[in-house]
């Protein structure tokens, strides 16, 4: 009898990229060795937010040493169009300028310094036009990027008449710059047939499609390769494409490799950000605190072109009721055109903006009724089979479970008592606490995008190479893909190599976005691996003359039949398969089953599953200066059955920090000319180590996980960002402890200046 190999301990904290990162061997776009003759492209962009070009003269710039070419829109062989959802955005301006940062010319040079000098010699004359920055102004003028979207459930109109309490108000949330630490960029290299592009993108196929369109070529002539990117957060989902298209255009015209990498200042000026929202809400409750009806109108500042705004707008509505069941809902959202750079995807994709308004409405109601907001929150949490405004029913609903666990295990009443004692003892320093439940739907809301493919090769020495459509941007999807393949083949992860994301190996990819990358690509990868495993099993059943009853295992780098002498190492098995001419490669495919959504009726089952959680945030406000510190954030999160706890915990902590940044300190300031005044990292502040909570605790909620999640490990990319909303309301609570009469508009981010004003605010003539 053969002793069967012992199962290996599962790797729950594999970080496949760490050895590269800590030794500096990781290759980001700008780290690639350059080919001889490489040229550098620089973008000359509009300094006006709205204007018509009357003349542009770059003849002197063209004479600058080192300048190879200066390319305008007339040199584009294909379409001058990069709009992804709606074709409303030229790659290079023709005669109308719609935002500061809108690309006009591509300066191609032998070195970056000369390109910079040349850009200063360009003479642009324009007729300036009226600039709209304010979203409400755009709404008043009916200046929309796309059709409004409406969701409804029940009969909100009549339901309000039955409500004991009705509150109306407005809430605004600011934009947010992604600050992926690696700026946007691309490196285009002409091939004997077509063009190869290395791009820092979350969407290789989006880049491929855009470049093909701009060059007027078919997609098979464009190869896009992504090794990894230094952060994306949504900013490189659609907006990595223009830089790739410009590099490719210049490379095509000059017939030389062209690299285009934005400097940070250029990146901040030219690229879109998280959408600012201005919203109006109306909430109705019964005497017991149950929410009966909710109405809202969301005005999204989309910027000058549609980009992904319509999809972002839709997700705002999907998440407008956050983690609550509300029987009567009527909500509308408008994507408004302004003269800002086209705003785009950012972790949460419109969801956070919707959830913030919901929480503002609850805070409003609680303040007016003089009750604790968490009493209202708890009373209205989603429950099993409760209906979302879009018709889907909550399944495996963990909203109440997360909340109750948080309240109990973090001893909410004890914390509140301590805060009360602290506040009683301190005149000029006050603490505040908030609870923030989250519910986030997983899947692209455009059902078509919920598909993925993977390519797997088992080489005849037994090593394995895998390719998927997933782009590693720090979210740990590489590690998860390696874990999936290692799990399928029963091999140590060292046997598996993950290849770059390349459109010639895996085509028609969806961008790495919507938190769904590991689910979609992991399931496609499982499909490919299991095809190979099945072929190997068939071979062994034949070889060993096994019956169906024999339990054939391929695991622990070997194949064996329990209780028999049949044993073969993985290496021997692969060698045998190769000799027997078994196909050792496979292409896997996955399309999320069950999901669908009807845009006409705004009803369907758009999400494969939902992720739940609750965060308790405690802060301390300095009531003399308006400064604040986040003392701790205590989270209960629904991971399902996490396949990589280190990666997933990291996503919680990182997402939380980013959400806190959006809600508290990250302030994009545009003047009325549409000029970004916070245009570098010295005055656009993202959280440093003192801006994040001093303590973050995360409780791992044990839930069975969702079948549609990879290995039942629920998606974790976006949901934790919304815990950051808790920081905003904790600060509100602290302010009210100092000044119970404080008038605090719902206006995020809650900067120190706003806190100080709120601390000393008074109600009008009351």
């Amino acid at each position, binding site marked *: 009898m053969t002793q069967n190999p012992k199962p290996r301990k599962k790797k*729950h*904290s594999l*970080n496949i*990229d*760490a*050895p*590269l*990162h*800590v*030794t*500096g*061997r*990781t*290759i*980001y776009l*700008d*780290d690639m*060795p350059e080919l001889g003759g490489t040229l550098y492209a620089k973008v000359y962009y509009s300094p006006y937010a709205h204007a018509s070009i009357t003349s542009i003269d770059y003849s002197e710039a063209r004479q600058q040493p080192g300048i190879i070419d200066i390319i305008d829109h007339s040199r584009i062989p294909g379409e001058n169009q990069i709009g992804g959802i709606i074709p409303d955005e030229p790659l290079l301006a023709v005669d109308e300028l719609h935002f500061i940062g809108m690309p006009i010319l591509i300066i191609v040079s032998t070195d970056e310094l000369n390109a910079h000098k040349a850009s200063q010699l360009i003479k642009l004359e324009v007729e300036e036009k009226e600039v709209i920055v304010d979203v409400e102004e755009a709404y008043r003028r009916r200046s929309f990027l796309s059709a409004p979207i409406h969701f409804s459930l029940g009969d909100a109109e009549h339901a309000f008449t039955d409500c004991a309490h009705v509150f109306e108000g407005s809430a605004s949330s600011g934009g947010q710059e*992604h*600050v*992926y*630490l*690696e700026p946007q960029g691309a490196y285009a290299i002409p091939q004997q047939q077509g063009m190869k592009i290395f791009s820092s993108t979350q969407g290789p196929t989006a880049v491929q499609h855009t470049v093909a369109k701009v060059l007027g070529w078919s997609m098979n002539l464009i190869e896009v390769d992504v090794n*990894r*990117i*230094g*952060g994306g*957060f949504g900013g490189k989902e659609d907006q990595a494409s223009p830089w790739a298209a410009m590099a490719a255009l210049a490379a095509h015209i000059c017939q030389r490799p062209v690299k285009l990498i934005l*400097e*940070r*200042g250029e990146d901040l000026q030219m690229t879109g950000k998280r959408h600012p929202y201005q919203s109006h809400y109306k909430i109705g409750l019964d005497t017991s605190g149950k929410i009966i009806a909710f109405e809202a109108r969301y005005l999204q500042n989309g910027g000058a072109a549609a980009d992904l705004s319509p999809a972002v707008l839709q997700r705002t509505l999907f998440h407008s009721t956050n983690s609550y069941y509300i029987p009567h809902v009527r909500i509308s959202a408008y994507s408004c055109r302004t003269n800002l750079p086209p705003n785009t995807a950012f972790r949460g994709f419109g969801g956070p903006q919707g959830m913030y308004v919901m929480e503002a409405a609850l805070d409003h109601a609680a303040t007016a009724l003089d009750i604790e907001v968490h009493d209202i929150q708890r009373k209205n949490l989603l429950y099993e089979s409760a209906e979302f405004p879009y018709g889907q029913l909550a399944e495996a609903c963990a909203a109440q479970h997360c909340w109750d666990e948080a309240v109990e295990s973090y001893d909410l009443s004890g914390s509140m008592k301590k805060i009360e004692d602290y506040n009683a003892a301190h005149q000029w320093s006050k603490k505040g606490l908030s609870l923030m439940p989250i519910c986030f739907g997983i899947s692209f809301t455009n059902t078509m995008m919920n598909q993925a493919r993977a390519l797997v090769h088992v080489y005849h020495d037994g090593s394995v190479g895998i390719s998927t459509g997933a782009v590693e941007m*720090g*979210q*740990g999807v590489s590690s998860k893909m390696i874990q999936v393949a290692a799990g399928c083949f029963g091999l140590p992860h060292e046997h598996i190599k993950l290849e770059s994301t390349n459109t010639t190996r895996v085509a028609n990819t969806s961008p790495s976005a919507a938190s769904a990358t590991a689910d979609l690509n992991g399931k496609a990868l499982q499909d490919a691996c299991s095809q190979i495993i099945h072929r190997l099993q068939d071979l062994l059943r034949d070889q060993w003359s096994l019956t169906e009853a024999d339990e054939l295992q391929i695991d622990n780098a070997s194949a064996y039949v329990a209780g028999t002498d049949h044993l073969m190492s993985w290496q021997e098995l692969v060698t045998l398969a190769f000799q027997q001419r078994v196909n050792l490669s496979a292409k896997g495919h996955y399309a999320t089953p069950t999901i669908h959504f009807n845009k006409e009726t705004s009803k369907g089952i758009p999400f494969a599953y939902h992720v739940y959680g609750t965060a308790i945030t405690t802060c301390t406000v300095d009531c003399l200066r308006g400064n604040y510190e986040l003392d701790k954030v*205590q989270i209960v999160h629904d991971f399902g059955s996490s396949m990589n*706890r*280190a*990666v997933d*915990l*990291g996503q919680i*902590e*990182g*997402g*939380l*920090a*980013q959400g806190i940044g959006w809600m508290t300190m990250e302030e994009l300031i545009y003047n009325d000319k549409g000029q970004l005044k916070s245009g*570098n*990292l*010295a005055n656009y502040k*993202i*959280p*440093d*180590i*003192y801006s*994040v909570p001093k303590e*973050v*605790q*995360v*409780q*791992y909620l044990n839930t069975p996980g969702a079948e549609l999640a990879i290995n039942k490990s629920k998606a974790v990319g976006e949901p934790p960002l919304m815990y950051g909303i808790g920081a905003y309301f904790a600060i509100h609570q602290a302010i009210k402890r100092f000044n119970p009469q404080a008038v605090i508009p719902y206006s995020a981010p809650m900067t120190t200046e706003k806190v100080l004003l709120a601390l000393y605010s008074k109600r009008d003539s009351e």
Partner: protein
Amino acid sequence: MKTVTLKINGTEHTAEVSPRTLLVHLIRENFSMTGTHIGCDTSSCGACTILIDGKSAKSCTILAVQADGTEIITVEGLATAEGLHPIQEGFHLNHALHCGFCTAGVMLRAVELLEKNPNPTEEEIRWGISGNLCRCTGYNNIVKAIQWASAKMQGKELPSTEPVFV
């Protein structure tokens, strides 16, 4: 053009540079050591942090000619023939990196911190790396990584590197 001679990771290098060349460009472009990254161009983010004569500095805002005659350590010079530097092990084992773009800079800053203060408190670590930005991690694991490296360098008992849940 000016001649600049400096020692990088123990090896002497010489280059002809224009007076406006930045140190980070000299390291990345002339010497092809690309582990030092450029994140913001304005010394706000710290991705370009290196050690110059043992002192951490943001190489995106230092001229190459200013570094003439100095000894520089970059991320490529942290590991030795014996293996990884404890700070590298600490960052790896504590999952103190996601996208990895800021990692080299934070590690080099931490190396200087631990040289000067081998046993820093958590507050001293936070203060020490407050000039480096990370957009991915939320910093907690970075603090843990530096604490781990501190313990390792002093031969103390090593803290657990398992993800901590309540």
